[in-house]
Every structure is written in structure tokens, then in C-alpha cells.
């Protein structure tokens, strides 16, 4: 196999898949670090985002990329709503109770998707898109947009976290929640902000998975493990780590078919997760261990 083949068939799809995982993993890592629990409904929230975009495409006849911001806003609102209605009351209880609640929320979101949109696979647009040839490397437009969108969204998020007052408040809450409260930082607003960001990124993640493959009710659930593996690989609480982790998991999954049967592609994320917990639970960029 020559180098071009390797890049075209494994590395490019790996980066695309990795970007999709990264978008979800960033939200997971923020929730893990700031709210301090593993959010198991994250994958299904991404599914919901993908289907909200589909509703905009089919209902309003807009192009998928116009539907994306609608899905981002819609899913962010749903995420905030879920927190207010279901998670907020559990805040004083052991965190694991919220983890359990989120498993139930995952089931509920999926049921909503299945009732509203059915169980058949769907797509944003029909027809086959042929890749363009860039000096022998073949890439589809949508693959470029996926990577680009991930870089832009995460870049904006990083600016927000390092430059703005509320972004810093989020970091402070992740760093030392007690001191953040003593400093008068409004916990409720930080929590809400975290959900807006995580929900929005979730929608983007689901949307790009949908545009690069297809939409189905289980799409998000199957991303949950790779997204967690990415967040832990990068280091919990590290946004740039989640991106790095996402890309590594995505590329590793695609490359894995060279050595193991393709049915076990999904096992790569699990292997990476266990390996990191075994040798370096703080992740590559020295994150938290809860």
C-alpha cells in the first residue's frame, strides 16, 4: 500500500471522525471538570442535535449548513432545560446519582428521536459526493468543513475561556469550586453556561457525523465511548487535550482495521480508555482524576 492510499483511506477519514469525536469530547471534559460527573447522555444529545438539523433541512428546506446553527442553538436550549428539570435537584446528592440520571436521560432522548423521526436511517442530502483531488490526496468538501468547523469552534471556545470574565469563571469553578464560591462567582450561571457550550458542541458533533455518514437513532450512543476515551486520553478538564484525544481516537479507529478485523473498530476506543486508566489516568495533558 502506498502512502497516498494510506492517507486517503485511513488518515483523512480518521481526522474527520476524530474532529467529530473532539467536538463531543470537549463538552464531556468541561462537564466532567466543572460539574464533576460523567455525562452519559452526551452521545444521545448529539443524536438529537443531528435530528434537529434534519428537521430544519426537511421542514424549512434550508441547506444543511444553515441548519447547523439552528441545531446548535436548539440543542443548547435542550441541554440547559434537561439540567434545570432533572439534574439540578440532584446537585446536593452524591455525584454518581446524577451519572445514573444521565443514563436515564440518554434513554429518554433516544426514545424521543425514535418516536419523532422513526428508526430508519436518514441523510441530509441524497446522492454521492465525489472527493476532490488535491495533489493525489482526495478529500470531500464536507470533510474539510468538518475539520474547519471543529478548529473554529474550539478556537472560539478557548478564547472565551482564557479572555472573558465568565470563561475564566468557568475555569475557576473547575480549578477550585469552593474558592470560586468564596469569591462570589455565581455557580448557577457557570453551570448554565457549561450546558450551553456542551449542548451546542454536541449538536455540531452529531451534525457532522450525520453529514459525513448517515443519521440513525443509535448514532450518538455509539460515539459515547470514543468521546469519553478522547476526553480521558487528553486529560479531564483540558479542552485542547480533548481535541488531541479525539483526533488520536479517530485516527486509531480508522487505522485499526489494518491490523484487527473491522468489526472490532469500535473496540479501539475501549482499549485506549483502559490503557490510559492503567498507565496515566491524568491523560496526556495532565488533567484531573475524579
Amino acid at each position, binding site marked *: 500500500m502506498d502512502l497516498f492510499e494510506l492517507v486517503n483511506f485511513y488518515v483523512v477519514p480518521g481526522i474527520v471522525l476524530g474532529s467529530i469525536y473532539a467536538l463531543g469530547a470537549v463538552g464531556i471534559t468541561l462537564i*466532567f471538570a466543572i460539574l464533576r*460527573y*460523567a455525562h*452519559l447522555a452526551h452521545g444521545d444529545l448529539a443524536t438529537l442535535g443531528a435530528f434537529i438539523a434534519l428537521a430544519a433541512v426537511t421542514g424549512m428546506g434550508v441547506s444543511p449548513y444553515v441548519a447547523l446553527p439552528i441545531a446548535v442553538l436548539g440543542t443548547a436550549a435542550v441541554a440547559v432545560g434537561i439540567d434545570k428539570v*432533572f439534574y439540578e*435537584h*440532584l446537585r*446536593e*446528592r*452524591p*455525584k*454518581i*446519582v446524577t*451519572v*445514573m*440520571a444521565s*443514563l*436515564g*436521560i*440518554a*434513554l*429518554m432522548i*433516544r*426514545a*424521543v428521536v*425514535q*418516536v419523532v423521526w*422513526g*428508526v430508519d436511517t436518514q441523510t441530509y442530502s441524497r446522492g454521492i459526493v465525489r472527493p476532490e483531488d488535491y495533489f493525489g490526496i482526495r478529500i470531500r468538501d464536507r470533510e474539510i468543513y468538518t475539520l474547519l468547523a471543529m478548529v473554529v469552534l474550539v478556537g472560539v471556545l478557548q478564547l472565551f475561556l482564557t479572555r472573558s470574565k465568565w470563561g475564566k469563571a468557568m475555569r475557576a469553578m473547575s480549578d477550585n469550586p469552593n474558592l470560586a464560591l468564596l469569591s462570589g462567582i455565581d455557580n448557577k450561571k457557570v453551570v448554565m453556561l457549561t450546558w450551553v457550550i456542551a449542548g451546542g458542541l454536541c449538536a455540531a458533533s452529531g451534525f457532522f457525523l450525520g453529514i459525513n455518514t448517515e443519521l440513525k437513532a443509535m448514532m450518538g*450512543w*455509539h460515539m*459515547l*465511548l470514543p468521546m*469519553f476515551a478522547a476526553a*480521558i486520553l487528553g486529560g479531564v478538564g483540558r479542552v485542547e487535550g480533548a481535541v488531541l484525544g479525539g483526533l488520536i481516537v479517530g485516527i486509531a479507529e480508522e487505522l485499526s482495521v489494518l491490523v484487527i*478485523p473491522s*468489526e*472490532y473498530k*469500535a*473496540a479501539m*476506543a*475501549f482499549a485506549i*480508555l*483502559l490503557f490510559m*486508566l*492503567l498507565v496515566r*489516568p491524568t491523560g496526556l495533558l495532565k488533567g484531573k*482524576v*475524579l
Partner: protein
Amino acid sequence: MEFAGLVNYALFMAIFICIYALLALGLNIQWGFAGLFNAGIAGFFAVGAYTSAIISTAPADGRIGGFDLHFVIGWIGAMLAAGLVAWPIGKICLRFRSDYLAIATIGIAEIIRLVIKSEPVLTNGARGISGIPRPAGDMGYMESQIAYLIIVLAVLIVAYVLVERQFNAPWGRMMRAIRDDEDAARAMGKNVEFRRLEAFIFGAALMGLGGAMFAHFNRSITPEAIDPMVATFLIWIMLILGGSGNNRGAILGAAVVWIIWSVSEIATDRLPHEYAVQAKYLRLFLIGLMLQLVLRFRPEGLLPEPLRGDQRSTKSGADRH
């Protein structure tokens, strides 16, 4: 439905309740007593089901086994296999907060699902393994059902007695001490990780046994036999609703939830076809909602954890972490 049909249905329900109660007991060891979050119950269930199937079926072409051994050996094998799968996962994850275990058990259940689908040599692929002998299966239909119910009920009672005894023994006291205040338990020199690993493996073994009893009852096991997420979730809601930390609660929860679940299935099956699919998912939504409501309004469940002597002083502080 005529009388014999009703009796049959009741028997059928009772057998399933016993099997689910066993699974809920297994989860109670992990969650109720050790605070371990297992989100991959279906995986351990499947390992048990297939292991016992391979051990006890007649030899077949194209796959390992069967070994045509007695079903009791199959069931013991199921427990061992499920415990064996739990061991490395627990070993790696139990050093951390239970969130990590939740993720890893979702992962292991997924891997087990992949193996079942892609390794026909072990599992006969999509067709599954059939011809699994049902104990007392050669009697008449009704007699056979009754006999099987007696067997599963006996297993459940034995498991209940053993688990209950362990919980009241020093072992149980130690587990609760670890669950309620890990640091204090550690400071007292308890080997927290090892104790948790024990609980995790024992719980998984019971789940494996539940899987085996399910397979022998159906006389076959296929990858489609259970929906992993739904099965896992049902067992969770059984335990939480029944009362985590209370073995009788786990059994009661299994009965209540299984009856609600089955009766609602009968109801939705009668709907016209175009609504039936949606109704199926609506049921899932409602069961998810039920968990939220129980967690919020009755977190202790129908039968709260009994306050044992060693706990009365610490229990009030246990929920504050």
C-alpha cells in the same frame, strides 16, 4: 384468555421475575452495598448465557462445543465466566470514582456485543445457539414450566439467603463503611480496592447466572434476545425503585417493574401497527422518566435500606458527599 392461558402467563411472568430478581440482587451487591456503577449488566448477562449454552448443548459443527454437560455445570461456568470478565475491568477502574467504572462497563458490554456478533466459532453468529436443554424440559408443557419456576425460585432463595447473610456479616459492615466514607475506611487500613473488586465480581457472577437461567428457559440464545441498553436499564430501575441496599427491595422492584413492563407491552401490542412502534419507544421514555422521578422524590425506594446497628450513627451523613 382462558384459565389455563392465564396460569401459563402467570408462570411465565414469575419465572422472568425470578431471573430479573437475581440480576437485581447482583446489582445490589455492586451498587447498593459497594456503590459501584455497572452500566453494562447486559454484557455480563450475555457472557453467562452463552457460556452455559456452550457447556450444556450437544456437540455442534462450526462452533466450539457444545460439551453436553449437565446444566448445573453450565450455570457454574456462567458465573465463573462473568466473574472472569469483570475481574480486569474492576482491577483497572475501581481505583477511581465510579464514573469511570460506568464508562468502562458501557464499553465492555459493547465489546461483548461485538464478539457475539462477529465470532461464529463461539456463538454461532446471528443464528445464535439453540437446543439448550431446559432442566425438567421433557415433561408436559405446564409441568415443565412449574418445575422450572421451582428451580429458579430455589436458586433465587439460596442467593438471597447467602447475600443477606454476607451483608449482615463483618464483610457487609466493611462494604458499607467503604461506601459511606471511603477515606475513613482507608484510614482504618481497609483494602478498599480489593473489597470493591470482590463485590464487583460477585455481582457480575450473579448476573452471569441470571443470563444462563434465561438461556436455558428459552432453550436458545441469540444476539437479538435482549436489547442491551433496555435490559441494563430495566434492572437499574428495578433496584432503585425497589430500594437499593435492601435485598428484599431488589426482589420487590424486579416484580413491580417487570409486571408494569409486561402489562404495558400487552397494551401497546394491541395498538394498530402504525402506532405500535412509536408506543414501544414511548414506553422506553416513560421508564426513563420513572427513574428520574424515583431519584428525585423517593431516592430510598419502596423498601429503604435497613439501618443496621453499625450504621445508625453514620447514615445521616452518608448522603452529603
